């Protein structure tokens, strides 16, 4: 029987006194796979990472790495490296000694540890700074050193807790590319869990995204699937999907909502309808459901238009060549294949 390679978390419960932290979280991450952990502040993302790393005891549940249970094992013996939001470099050590640290504490002779550290620094384009004091590095350089140091430990599991949160947008993209480049190398194929608040970052970095809400995993799916088919209104809202509309399901299974009608079997009554922004097109009046433009935003990725349709706000993109302004009348067309129906009513809103 093959033992699963990578990280397996089973029924993880963590509580802080009377306050619950995590409720029975199950998560598997294969070697070479990257999973982004996404959720609002205080939902338990960091608690989960700390529990996996052995820095926070589990109330119940189990953690296994490459098929071996490590639940009660000391952090240094788990084969799991945890990277904080800040690089947490050891500022009393030089850059090369920081990177060589995991090797030296495992008994690698200093000379060999330094050779390996130098090779890793070369991979993150910092070989020229090997003998600098680590506190003289810039923010981006510190992150890259921290990553090289983490990989020097050759972990089976790498936990990244909001690794780019402290960086400005330009550096963030640069360091993220470095991380993806290094993690993409077959030589190092750890199971990676990345905590982030940023949906775009999660989608860019991860093969799968796990949504954590109130200490429970609400959904684990590929970024594309998640954005197309969130399992709940809460997940859709966390992902920042703007078009979460109210719908009504009739006895024949037809769901009516502000833009269209579609087939979706289920209980009769109120439902929520999620429509991707790029599935909503605004054309000239008469070309679809009538609406009035509320606002127009010009972004690098294109123009985003928000319209009012029978009292509901809908966001989409204008038809090619169509220039719109607030107050204009338009017709709304929806790609029926991009409509996702959730069997729950939107809180506090009437049909």
């Amino acid at each position, binding site marked *: 029987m093959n033992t699963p390679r990578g990280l397996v978390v089973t029924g993880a419960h963590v509580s802080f006194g009377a306050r619950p932290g995590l409720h029975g979280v199950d998560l598997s991450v294969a070697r070479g796979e990257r999973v982004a952990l996404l959720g609002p502040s205080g939902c338990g993302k960091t608690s989960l990472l700390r529990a996996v*790393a052995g*820095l926070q005891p589990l109330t119940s549940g189990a953690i296994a790495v490459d098929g071996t249970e490590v639940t009660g094992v*000391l952090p240094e013996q788990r084969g799991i*490296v945890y990277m904080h939001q800040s690089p*947490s470099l050891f*500022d*009393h050590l*030089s850059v090369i000694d920081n990177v060589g640290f995991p090797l030296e*504490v495992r008994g690698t002779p200093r000379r060999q540890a330094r050779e390996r550290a130098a090779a890793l620094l070369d991979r993150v384009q910092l070989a020229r700074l090997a003998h600098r004091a680590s506190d003289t590095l810039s923010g981006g350089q510190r992150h890259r050193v921290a990553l090289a140091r983490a990989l020097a430990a050759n972990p089976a599991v790498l936990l990244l807790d909001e690794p780019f949160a402290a960086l400005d947008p330009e550096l963030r993209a640069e360091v993220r590319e470095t991380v993806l480049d290094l993690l993409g190398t077959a030589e190092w194929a750890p199971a990676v869990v990345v905590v982030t608040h940023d949906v775009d970052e999660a989608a860019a970095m991860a093969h799968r995204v796990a949504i954590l809400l109130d200490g429970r995993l609400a959904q684990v799916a590929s970024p594309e699937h998640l954005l197309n088919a969130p399992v709940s209104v809460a997940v859709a809202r966390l992902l920042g999907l703007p078009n979460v509309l109210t719908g009504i399901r009739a006895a024949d299974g037809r769901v009516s909502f502000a833009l269209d009608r579609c087939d979706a079997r289920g209980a009769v009554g109120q439902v929520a309808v999620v429509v991707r922004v790029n599935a909503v097109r605004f054309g000239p009046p008469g070309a679809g459901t009538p609406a009035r433009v509320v606002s127009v935003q010009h972004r690098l990725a294109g123009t985003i238009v928000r319209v009012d349709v029978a009292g509901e706000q809908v966001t989409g993109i204008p038809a090619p060549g169509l220039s719109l302004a607030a107050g204009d009348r338009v017709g709304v067309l929806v790609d029926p294949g991009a409509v996702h129906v959730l069997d729950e009513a939107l809180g506090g809103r009437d049909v």
Partner: protein
Amino acid sequence: MTRRNVAPLAAVLLIASPVIVGVAYTILAALGLRGAGASELTVRHVAAALGGWDTWRGVGWTLATAAVATAVAAAAAFTVALRVQQSPLGRLLAVLPLAVPHVAAALAALLLLSQSGWVSRLTHAAGLTPTPADFPALVYDRFGVSLVLAFAWKEFAYLVLTAVAVLGTLDRASDEVARTLGASARQVFWRITWPQLWRGTSPAVIAAFAFLIGQYEMPALLAPSTPTALPLLIYERSVDPNLLRRGEAYVVALLALTLCAGLIAAHGIWRRRLPGVTR
């Protein structure tokens, strides 16, 4: 020099001026140009002070007692600081000796540790010694046991205060990261916490050591007459009825000053060579 620098420099000069004037006067007096019996430029005082065996025994004894006391105080302070850093009451209790004057601490040591002191009486009462006088001589003894203990007790509080402040600045996340990188709790202490704690507190440890070299009240009450501690040697020479010997006091004072300055300079050089020390 910019105008912005003038005011702070003037303030520093004003504060340092008594030391500068004092050192200048001491140099002149050591060379026979000032003070009692001053006449002409001479190295007679220098030769007499530095050629005397008493001076070098005093130097050695003073350095040894200061070094042992500082080491004991630092070891105790670091151990305690690591345990009380999260406890306001613990921190308060640990720094209480700061409020006790050195002379009071010396008197307390005398009352407690002399052969007629409380500890000797308690050991006698407990049947550990036939008479109180059989208690080992810890005061005025040639090893300076009571002096070292009193020094250490006083400097302990100062070093605890410093160590707690340094520990408060350390990034505790580093310890956790180090654990997951494969370091045991012991390795984290010796490779991460200790180097940073030592770097942060070493200036205070050096200051405590330098202070003890020149500390007068405690050796006056607890130290033996031979070897003579440097501060006592300076005092004895400075009140010598033979006015011609008083110049030697300035030479010994300059010797003590040189020792401290040398120590501080060596510490500065060591720190400059460390990676990651903010200079």
